[in-house]
């Protein structure tokens, strides 16, 4: 990647696919708590995420996001379908994806792994544990060195 290390910490472009406003709020708090500088774009159903990815593929001028936080249980198109579609995208097929879900089902974990999800974060009931998402995001984008 061509970004200069000097630009860090720059604003991280994060897309959050999540239909629950309460979870959107918690995600924001978790990112804030771990001092991530971010622009958060929230898409509230699977259809919107697919259009977003298609839009990026269609218009090369639009910037690719640095990270996708993806809830698996989305309205219209579920997270697995979205993830498959994203991984097939020419422009942003490689962006890191943190799957964000309350499911601990084996098949959900397996599907996520199959589609090269970067991390599987099971939404916990404890506030403190939820806040750990901020650390996960930091690690993932740090590893990616894109912002």
């Amino acid at each position, binding site marked *: 990647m061509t970004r200069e290390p000097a630009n860090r910490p720059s604003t991280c472009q994060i897309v959050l696919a999540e239909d*629950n406003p*309460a979870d959107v709020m*918690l995600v924001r*708090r978790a990112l804030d708590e771990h001092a991530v500088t971010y622009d958060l774009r929230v898409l509230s159903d699977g259809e919107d995420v697919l259009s977003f990815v298609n839009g990026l593929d269609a218009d090369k001028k639009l910037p690719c996001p640095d990270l996708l936080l993806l809830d698996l249980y989305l309205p219209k198109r579920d997270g697995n379908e979205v993830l498959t579609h994203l991984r097939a995208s020419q422009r942003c097929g490689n962006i890191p994806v943190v799957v964000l879900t*309350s*499911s601990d089902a*084996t098949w959900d974990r397996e599907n996520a792994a199959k589609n090269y999800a970067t991390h599987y974060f099971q*939404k*916990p*009931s*404890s*506030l*403190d544990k*939820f806040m750990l998402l901020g650390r996960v995001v930091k690690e993932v984008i740090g590893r990616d060195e894109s912002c």
Partner: protein
Amino acid sequence: MDTLKREVESEESMAGSKEVERISPGFSSEVAAALSQRDREQKDFLENAAIPMHWVAEDGTILWANAAELELLGYPRDEYVGRNIADFHADGSVIADILNRLRNNESLKGYEARLRCRNGTIRDVSINSNVYREDGRFVHTRCITFDVSEQKRIAELHHRLSAIVESSDDAILSKDLNGIIRSWNRGAQRIFGYTADEIVGKHISTLAPPERVDEIPNILERLIRGERVDHYETQRKTKDGRIINVSLTVSPIRDASGKIIGASKVARDITEQKRMSEIQERLAAIVESSDDAILSKDLNGIIQSWNRGAERLFGYRANEIIGKHISTLAAPDRVDEIPDILGRIARGECIDHYETKRRTKDGRILTVSLSISAIRDSEGKIIGASKVVRDITDSERQAQALREANVALRRANADLHQFAYSASHDLQEPLRMVSTYSELLKREFGSKLGPAGEEYLGYTVQGALRMEQLLRDLRAYTLASAAGQEPEGDVDANESLDRSLAGLEASIKESGAAITRTELPHVRVHEFQMEQLFQNLIGNAIRYRSDEPPRIHVAAARKGRDWIFSVADNGIGIDPRYKEQVFELFKRLHSFTEYPGTGMGLAICQRIVERAGGHIWVESEPGRGSTFYFTIPCRDG
């Protein structure tokens, strides 16, 4: 010819006068007259006696023959006397031999020969002959011939009959009116085992088994009355004691005057025949009483036989359908398959459980299973086919209904499972909101709520956490009971135990539990379920501990086809009254504040064990501890 004839005649007359001359010279006229009288009588005797006689010269020329001889052969004198005797013998070599012997002074007695009559018939004769010589010179033969044709014919007949009797497969014997056996053929020997020497002279009852001896006098009586006994079926006993089924035909033997002097008896061994006919009857009865339709057809497809089962199934009576073509029975859309079936039969193929549709007399369509096999004649040639038709309409319908019910059940099960799983998942989501935001509320506004507010909030969080545990267990329970995929391989129970102990690390440390274990086997259980099993049982052992630190022992032992696992503790134990109840869903023996829990742990364990093909139970002494046992079948048998 004429000359020859004349010579013979003159010779004949000469012979006559010579004889007289030989006797007469020198006798008185009375004597001569008496001699002449005697001469006439002797001449007459020779000429007219009822025995054929002739003289033949050394070369075979017939010099003289009497009336009886001419009568025997049917020649007039002039066609016989003067001819060579060889012309009248059927066998040239025989007369040559006769003459030869006579020339050598042999006297023939009862020499058999065959003479040809004028009408071409052949007579069997017995010849007695020698030669009259004068001064050693062969003058003529003295030949007396007996016609033995009739005796010969009778002898031959007798011979032939004997041969027939002898070679018969049937036992042929004769007995006199006292029942004494008089003759015995080879067939009798074969059937009864006695040789003629052994049995001739014995009483006929020797051949009857004890319970049949009574019938002998009856048979004899009937014979004496001149009755025949025809195909009388009874039993007889062989020399080696076997009882055989025989068919007897007994007929009276009469002497020449017609007086009954005994009986001939033909006995046929029908044991095998009887057995076969019994088998045949039995088979026929089976066919007739079969619930399946059994019918036969020839290679043209014409129905030849039809049992009651066929009548019941198709509705046609035998007399309605026999002679009709088999396609009468085919469902309209199955008529095409008939030529193919007939072709396969003609090639000698068997058709087994062929499922097709057939039509009854009243037009109902049946689903049937056909089994068809070729019928062969005694030379093995295929002449038709037998066919067993089984109505599977009902079973077909039942199978279909069962399949549908199964699909519905599976769908319902899957739906239920999906429902329970989704419900617990979807219920968890709002709960997560309650607990997370309660915490958030407490964290950010705790100081403003005051002590009472904080306490209320505490209960809210606690309730949410407990609900969450319940949902987690409910999910585990539905997973354990789902008829999902079978485990693909064996799991090392040692590793499962390791992982579950790691999961329980905090409570082990907090309670000071000491856990011991033996070597555990590999078993065919889902990996995560095996882990959950240990986790629930050991978790319980820690939770329901007494005042002492928990001591827990995990072991496994092989018993028969099962592995028996045990988890033993020194905890508070379980009242035996509840040893069944503890495995029920949501059953709890203690208050939540006393021992927190959802009441699902053991129900989950039971589901896991039962799905693996085993069972689970508990033995306990209240106050001293409990041991939970569960079995998992061994896969190596």
